[in-house]
């Protein structure tokens, strides 16, 4: 089979030689029982896709690093990685204080010559749509739900019917101890992170009064120092969970509290863990979930086999390793009332010279939206709110203002009304 591949040279390889991927190329050079004839042309196309695709990995922690390594070893050559954190422990001594994204990129590049990994040490929110548009696929290996929700909403918002490249598959991996999941989202087409928010239980919290009066566990003493004592004694200082002085302060307070209640076990690293909400990671769970994410990425990019997330099919793989082993793959349904993908913004033609009041009246007459007490806003501005009374009063003057002063051409605005379960979203188009 190798001869067959050699007969179809792939242009633009970074290393020139594909000897290292001989077996993978064999796999990609012939159709199999599960390949889709319409989407899979064996040989140079899928191999070229692997070599040329640009993949973005969000997160360079335990899971993110595992994903980077797997991608590089699968033959991907252009990878970017974003992480805002610096290394504080777990890594090698010489790397402490450096950005996780840079250290991870450097390490994997050394192991996989020919693969270029570009790190960015910062927040995903620093980047705009032009940045995300460069990638063919995004993989998240994060522990933050907030970051997931942000990238999800961004990718949903980027989908543009005039540009097939604007549809970026999102692969999301997550682990918590022995449990984990991998899921694939085709933004606007299949159930998104926001639709699936109910799959994440909010962080278990201890009642404030327990912390204040009857702590029973070392964690309660730490939470007390974190939530109550800091506010009391260092109100004007913003707590920075990466500042060792801040953690030390909390640790000392927690230790004093623990002594008072004869509770043992408060340590510096426990303090750090509780305050940063670090859930103990298990390397093997990360490896399992990362492997699943990377397999899906490989299949999506090459079309070599059917993948998770095809509309109408399974999109979510759940893995549980604490009660023996259990995996379950299912289709999480898209929600009609999802605030991100449920009802995509519709174009609404507006006369920039007319008033906001006329727009609100016009909306009330639309058959699909017979509004009774509407609230309207853009990301920046509260346009008009019927409720609560104080906002009605402060936004009422806006009704007399011209559309051109309130809404830019092409700007999105959202309408909510107590009579409707869902929110309506529109894009104002000047007519």
């Amino acid at each position, binding site marked *: 089979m190798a001869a067959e591949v050699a007969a179809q040279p792939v242009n633009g390889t970074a290393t020139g030689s594909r000897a290292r991927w001989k077996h993978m190329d064999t796999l990609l050079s012939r159709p199999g029982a599960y390949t889709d004839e319409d989407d899979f042309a064996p040989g140079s196309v899928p191999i070229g896709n692997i070599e040329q695709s640009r993949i973005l990995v969000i997160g360079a922690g335990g899971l993110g690093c595992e994903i980077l390594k797997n991608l590089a070893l699968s033959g991907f050559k252009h990878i970017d990685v974003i992480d805002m954190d610096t290394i504080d422990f777990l890594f090698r001594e010489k790397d402490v204080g450096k950005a996780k994204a840079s250290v991870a990129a450097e390490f994997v590049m050394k192991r996989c010559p020919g693969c270029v990994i570009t790190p960015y040490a910062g927040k995903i929110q620093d980047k705009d749509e032009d940045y995300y548009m460069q990638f063919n696929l995004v993989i998240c290996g994060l522990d933050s739900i907030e970051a997931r929700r942000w990238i999800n909403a961004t990718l949903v918002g980027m989908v543009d*019917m005039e540009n097939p490249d604007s*549809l970026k598959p999102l692969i999301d991996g997550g682990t918590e101890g022995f449990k984990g999941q991998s899921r694939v989202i085709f933004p*606007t087409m299949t159930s998104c992170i926001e639709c699936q928010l109910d799959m994440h239980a909010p962080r278990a*919290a201890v009642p404030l*009064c327990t912390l204040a009066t009857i702590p029973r566990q070392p964690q309660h003493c730490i939470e007390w120092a974190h939530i109550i004592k800091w506010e009391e004694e260092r109100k004007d200082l913003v707590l920075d969970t990466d500042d060792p002085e801040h953690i030390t302060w909390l640790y000392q307070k927690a230790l004093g509290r623990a002594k008072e209640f004869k509770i043992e076990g408060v340590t510096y690293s426990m303090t750090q863990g509780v305050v940063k909400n670090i859930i103990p990671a298990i390397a093997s769970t990360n490896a399992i979930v990362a492997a699943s994410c990377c397999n899906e990425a490989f299949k999506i990019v090459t079309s070599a086999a059917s993948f998770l997330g095809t509309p109408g099919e399974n999109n979510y793989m759940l893995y549980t390793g604490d009660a023996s082993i259990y995996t379950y793959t299912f289709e999480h349904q898209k929600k009609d009332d999802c605030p991100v993908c449920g009802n995509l913004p519709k174009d609404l033609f507006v006369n920039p010279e007319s008033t906001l009041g006329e727009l609100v009246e016009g909306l009330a007459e639309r058959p699909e939206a017979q509004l009774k007490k509407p609230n309207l806003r*853009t990301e920046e501005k509260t346009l008009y709110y019927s409720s609560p*009374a104080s906002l009605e009063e402060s936004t009422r003057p806006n009704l007399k203002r011209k559309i051109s002063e309130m809404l830019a051409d092409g700007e999105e605005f959202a309408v*909510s009304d107590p009579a409707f379960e869902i929110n309506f979203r529109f894009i104002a188009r000047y007519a």
Partner: protein
Amino acid sequence: MLKIWSMKQQQQKNEAAAGPAAKKKKVTAAQLRVQKDLSELALPQTMKTVFPNPDDILNFTLHLTPDEGLYKSGSFSFTFAISQNFPHEPPKVKCQQKIYHPNIDLEGNICLNILREDWKPVLNLNAVVVGLQFLFLEPNASDPLNKEAAADLQGDRDRFKRNVRSSMQGGSVKGESFDKVVK
């Protein structure tokens, strides 16, 4: 991916056609949810909201003047700070006055289950407002944040009542002075 895109085109045909994606920023999921919650907010006569910046609906103050119960006629205000992670995270609510209340500490922290351990994304701002109102009608000695006030409430209800009245006038209870909340 070719196949996925043709599925997308098919899907689009079945829905209303849309032009290019929106310019500028999109209304965030948290804003959308808060906007919806505000549209459904049913405030009684005893409550009103104040938005220091009307464009920012994630930060506001709620004023409460109970018309019955032990805290009758006091003016209390609560700051609401809602993060972009709402409704996954509950709003952060604090009492702005220093008051004598078994479930509110001297810093304004509030022990209300739905603001912490029992928060669920299906709960809305109305539920929080009702919860706050309830705390002032039925202070609860079994979830104390202010232990002394809770002990008074449990041990001697009349003394607790007297302490509430004098603290609301700006008086001291056991050497701790409180904010005047009545006119």
